[in-house]
């Protein structure tokens, strides 16, 4: 049977992709930020899974306002990097895992989580920047994208996201093949990109969120949208996606193998955690 071996959590700022693609990671002010991912790359080289299920949000690239799926699971075999307006990132295409994705769809929908299934879409920085940060220049395995609407309200609640993660965890653990699966949660941490409050950073909130994510995710699931936006900024709402990944790991006290926090990356507080199942 397949199993969820680890969870990786990281912000997915587009400027990080630009710094990586232009070879500026050793330049000030980026160097201390990328240093926080050096451990992660070594860890990833030693713990490469068979499949990554990567929870992220699309930023008006695959989905505009014509279609606004709340939870969209990539069931296709290949996903190209999107041209977000700057030209596509020079990174490899993402190879999917249609068999496991179809199984997750089947299992989750019969657990009453009505996912949208996507066989064709481009993937943006929300998905490719985390892969670049943790894996380097190429992707070690197939990746199943799970795109979450956190742009047009209503967006899913923290509680729903944690519960969906748990359903995904059950789905993975009932897949016949003996696959090592990691589930990644991306986005956040505190940031706000528009309005007169733009530039907001709340480090105290971010640290508390990371503390509680490890052993008390059910407390985080009670946070309302209003509190999340008030405390973490309008784009800090992306943190609900970390709860999907945490829910997929059925483990009360996972081992924290890496924790990193840095302000800023462009407009954003960067948080990063690696949790291993015991």
């Amino acid at each position, binding site marked *: 049977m397949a199993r969820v071996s680890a969870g990786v959590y990281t912000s997915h700022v587009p400027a990080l992709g630009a710094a990586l693609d232009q070879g500026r990671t050793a330049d000030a002010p980026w160097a201390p930020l990328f240093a926080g991912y050096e451990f992660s790359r070594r860890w990833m080289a030693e713990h490469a899974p068979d499949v990554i299920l990567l929870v992220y949000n699309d*930023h008006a690239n695959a989905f*505009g306002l014509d279609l606004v799926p709340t939870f969209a699971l990539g069931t296709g075999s290949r996903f190209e990097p999107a041209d977000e307006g700057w030209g596509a990132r020079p990174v490899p295409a993402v190879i999917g895992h249609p068999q496991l994705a179809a199984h997750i769809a089947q299992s989750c929908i019969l657990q009453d989580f009505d996912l949208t299934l996507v066989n064709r879409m481009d993937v943006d920085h929300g998905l490719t920047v985390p892969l670049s940060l943790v894996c380097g220049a190429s992707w070690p395995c197939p990746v199943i994208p799970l795109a979450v609407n956190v742009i047009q*309200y209503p967006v899913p609640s923290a509680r729903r996201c944690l519960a969906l993660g748990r359903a995904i965890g059950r789905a993975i653990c009932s897949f016949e093949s003996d696959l090592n699966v990691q589930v990644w949660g991306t986005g956040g941490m505190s940031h706000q990109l528009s309005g*007169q409050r*733009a530039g907001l950073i709340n480090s105290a909130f971010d640290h508390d969120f990371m503390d509680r994510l490890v052993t008390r995710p059910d407390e985080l699931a009670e946070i309302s949208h209003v509190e999340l936006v008030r405390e973490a900024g309008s784009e800090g709402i992306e943190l609900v996606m970390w709860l999907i990944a945490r829910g997929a790991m059925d483990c009360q006290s996972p081992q924290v193998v890496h924790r990193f926090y840095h302000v800023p990356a462009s407009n954003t507080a960067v948080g990063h955690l690696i949790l291993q199942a015991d």
Partner: protein
Amino acid sequence: MQTPDFSDIPGTVMFDAARARQGYALNAFCMSLMQAANRERFKADEATYLEQWPMSPAQKQAVLARDMNRCLELGGNVFFLVKIAATDGISVQQMVAGMVGMSPQDYRDMMMQGGRPIQGNRSRREWGL
């Protein structure tokens, strides 16, 4: 189930269904800038290019003037509007700096010093509103 009320949060524009309806054509125009050929056509003649979308005159004027705050008020969303900035060769950070009325250097300095603090920025009351 009550609709969440975000109105006490100062300086924050929520992109809800009403704004999405109001901004549908404006945001669709922004999406078109994902194609390099469209970026070139827009740059060659902005006003003519905008005629393809049923945007309001105010929305078109806000785009031509690069008044991003006005675009937000008229239903634009930052992740769509960022494609205009990309077409202009402006970074997200520079665009955000413009929206809060700061020079790019002052905004960058604020971020490097830890960003805009949460203290004093939670509630409209703290802004005297």
